[in-house]
């Protein structure tokens, strides 16, 4: 479903991604972790072309993201993305946030879009909040709306870029619960996160990055029981202590 082949990216002289290769198959949940500044977020943003890259290739459902001929908006509409800071549109109600792209991008009529939005709001447990503005919701609620907004386009895969990093601890679980239920339903997911509990529960594979390189790319059990690289061992020991 998502093929990342030998991609490299530079900011000026600084190389943020170094020859990264990995893949996410249909129905697979891949967790990307690693210390901050390791290039995880940059890597996931290359998948839908929010970040351009200078070398290598990314294929989503067989379509090349880096190809200038590719209709990027069309491709992006098929991949849902959830951001660290939610990025809901503050000038619109929750319902309009979820409706907007359905109407403007997919061309759904308003009635059908609203029906889908309400159904998704119910799914994330927020059907009562439809008429509110994002600023009136808690962080956890906002992130659940953001997930609903991404799902509204019926994506073939979902990208999560540190979806719980900006949340207060007591709100992390309400977001993870939604993500776990998505994963168990077979959604193809690529998730940048430090939540190792989530990785243990639902990930199929774990990708570990350090200094722009994919250091480890292993099945979940293998990664947690016997990480091969020293860097990953160190990272796990630090993060799992708590």
């Amino acid at each position, binding site marked *: 479903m998502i093929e990342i082949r030998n991609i490299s990216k530079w900011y000026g002289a600084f190389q943020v991604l170094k020859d990264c290769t990995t893949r996410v198959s249909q129905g697979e949940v891949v967790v990307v972790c690693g210390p901050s500044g390791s290039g995880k977020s940059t890597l996931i943003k290359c998948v839908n072309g929010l970040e351009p890259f200078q070398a290598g290739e990314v294929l989503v459902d067989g379509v090349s993201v880096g190809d200038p001929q590719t209709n990027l908006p069309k491709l992006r509409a*098929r991949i849902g993305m959830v*951001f660290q800071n939610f990025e809901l*549109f503050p000038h619109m109600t929750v319902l309009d946030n979820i409706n*907007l*792209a359905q109407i403007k*991008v997919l061309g759904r009529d308003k009635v059908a879009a609203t029906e889908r939005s309400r159904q998704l709001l119910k799914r994330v447990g927020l059907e009562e909040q439809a008429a509110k503005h994002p600023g009136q919701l808690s962080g956890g609620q906002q992130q659940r709306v953001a997930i609903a907004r*991404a799902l509204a386009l019926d994506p073939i895969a979902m990208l999560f870029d540190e979806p719980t990093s900006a949340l207060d601890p007591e709100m992390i679980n309400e977001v993870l619960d939604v993500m776990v239920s998505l994963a168990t339903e077979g959604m193809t997911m690529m998730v940048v996160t430090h939540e190792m509990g989530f990785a243990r529960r639902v990930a199929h594979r774990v990708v570990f990055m350090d200094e722009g390189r994919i250091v480890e790319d292993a099945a979940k059990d293998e990664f947690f029981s016997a990480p091969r690289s020293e860097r990953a061992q160190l990272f796990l020991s630090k993060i799992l202590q708590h």
Partner: protein
Amino acid sequence: MYDFDWTSVVGGLPYLGSGMLLSLRLLVTAVAVGVVLGTVLALMRLSRYRLLSAFAGTYVNFFRSMPLVLVIFWFYFLVPLMLRGVIDNPAVGPLYSALIAFAIFEAAFYCEIIRAGIQSIPSGQISAAYALGMNYAQAMGHVILPQAFRNMVPLLLTQSIVLFQDISLVYVIGLSDFLGVAAKIGQRDGRLVELYLFVAAVYFVLCFAASQLVRRLQKRLAT
């Protein structure tokens, strides 16, 4: 001691009113066209295409370095002259030449306000819009500009208050705006002092009240 006589002010009220109407007409048109043009310029200035951003940058820097009076003169004298090469008898007239001059001049100022407004929106917002499959026009039109304008309204209004005062400069091309009318009545009746005092009072009341409203709006938007 000067002997005040306000009868020419009172008698001239209908004429003064028509002058004020012309001033407001110029203001509304210049603001409307200026904001639209300013938005286009701001988007050009922020464009990654160098030719567009260079054009908009030059435009803004040029008009911000020009006295407004000069621009009004140009459009009154030079533009019809240039048009004469294209059309036989370009009847632009002082009103339309002034309208165009204000719109084009103010666009440079609105451009800078709007550019700052767009830049004040966190970059994650445009990423989110793109991630939902929107193209540039949709992301700008539905996500960025509505938020940017909301933040910019106080600044745009303040600039428009300044413009309202600047509109009095059309007296140099003989238009009968509020100040122009007052000057004509004052000269006719030999009562320039009264007329100019009256004009000053009206400008002060209108602009001060408008500024207070803008300040209130700003406070409301800030919360």
